[in-house]
């Protein structure tokens, strides 16, 4: 059974229907990359999965828990789903260590000493143990994003959703974030990544999902999507985006 199932998800903002029925399934250990022009509902899709945005219609399951059910304790579900934001959204008043530790202490109710150990281990994993006592404002964008990945990892999530994690970064800082994500994918973390980084998509994605106009236009393994997409629009978009962003990591 798939780890995550999304069924016929709809979302409308005013007159504009941003999601027009999206269905997908994600297996444990799989890395899915969602691509598509801006404004086509990719971020909304991610936010509807853990109900940061309430979908209008459709269902989402994490294993056998229906996330979209009214009976579900949404906070318990969210604790199992990591979320990495485009703008990092670190807590300004907390050090890197405390940013990672907050969820451990306040959500998972871990004793303080254990939480500290775990938080340090996650900072180590993203290469920032030396910055444990730094406040977000004292870190570069790339470092902030790595702390936010550590913050998500500390919760032992079943999967992590990445919403354009490198779009707010200067080009020279993108690499350090991508290499952390590549390592995660290789370690078997389940990930859904909205990104324009085609090099990343090509090298680690198990599946690429091309969205446009609120629907999934085409999905498949990277090789097939890049070499012989079934829908002409897919190939057109991939060519354009590869030109714009390059294929390098």
């Amino acid at each position, binding site marked *: 059974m798939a780890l995550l199932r999304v069924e016929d998800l709809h979302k409308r903002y005013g007159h504009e229907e941003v999601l027009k029925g999206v269905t997908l399934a994600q297996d444990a250990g799989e890395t899915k990359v969602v691509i598509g022009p801006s404004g086509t509902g990719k971020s909304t899709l991610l936010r509807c999965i853990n109900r940061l945005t309430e979908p209008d219609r459709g269902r989402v399951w994490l294993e056998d828990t229906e996330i979209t059910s009214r009976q579900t304790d949404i*906070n318990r579900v969210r604790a199992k789903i990591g979320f990495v934001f485009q703008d990092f959204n670190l*807590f*300004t*008043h907390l050090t890197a260590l405390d940013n990672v530790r907050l969820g451990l202490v306040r*959500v998972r109710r871990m004793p303080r000493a254990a939480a500290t150990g775990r938080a340090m281990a996650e900072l180590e994993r993203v290469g920032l143990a030396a910055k444990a006592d730094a406040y*977000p404002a004292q870190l570069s964008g790339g470092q902030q994003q790595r702390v936010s990945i550590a913050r998500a990892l500390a919760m032992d999530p079943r999967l992590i959703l990445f919403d354009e994690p490198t779009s707010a970064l200067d080009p020279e800082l993108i690499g350090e974030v991508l290499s952390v994500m590549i390592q995660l994918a290789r370690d078997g973390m389940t990930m859904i990544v909205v990104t324009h980084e085609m090099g990343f998509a090509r090298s680690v994605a198990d599946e690429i999902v091309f969205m446009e106009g609120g629907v999934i236009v085409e999905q498949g393994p990277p090789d097939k999507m890049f070499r012989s997409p079934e829908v002409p629009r897919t190939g057109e978009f991939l060519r354009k985006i590869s030109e714009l962003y390059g294929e390098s990591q």
Partner: protein
Amino acid sequence: MDLSVWTQVAPHVPVLLRGFVVNIQLLLGLISLGLAVGVVTALVEVYAPRPVGIAASAYTWFFRGVPEIVLLFLFYFGLSQFGIPVSAFFAAVLALGLRSSAYQAQIFRGAFQSIPHGQMMAARALGLGRLRSIVYVVLPQALRLSLAGWSNEFSSVLKDTTLAWGIGVVEVMRQASYIRARNFTLTLPIYVTVALMFLVLTYVGNLAIGLAERRLRVPGLEGQR
């Protein structure tokens, strides 16, 4: 002017100080009440459903719009008319405290609104409920940002405690007027002494707030230099 009047004040200082202690008690009472009610009012204005928010705004409008001396009379004489017996001291704390809460709510509301919404979302994404996200993420930042405005309110209500004289609280101004009634030549030195007491308290209070501001400073939180 006979300079010896200044030395004649000395024996009266203990009495004045006894009155001044009442001002400090008034201050502590009203500023704590104002802080508690002010934070809650600001939270309601920013986060509660619209009708409740409007009620909170009406509340701040009332307490910011009525003169303090009128509030004091309303609470002291008004409550007893409803059969609620209140001491002058309690009425003063209530009237001045609620009035201060309306001003403090303005300070906190601005601070709450200045915390980026993304941080709230990040807290929710971790699995923290709405209230707990506010408590652990928004509040610590908003309170820090409020300190500068809050020190202003502190200095202001500190002096307002003398208005309690109007409803018969035996605070420093009333003690001063007792002394003056017995010896009119002491008028000027007595009130200069009272003024000095407030100047010292304002100075010490702001020093303490400034110290707190520096201790709590966090790099990157705006409004703090």
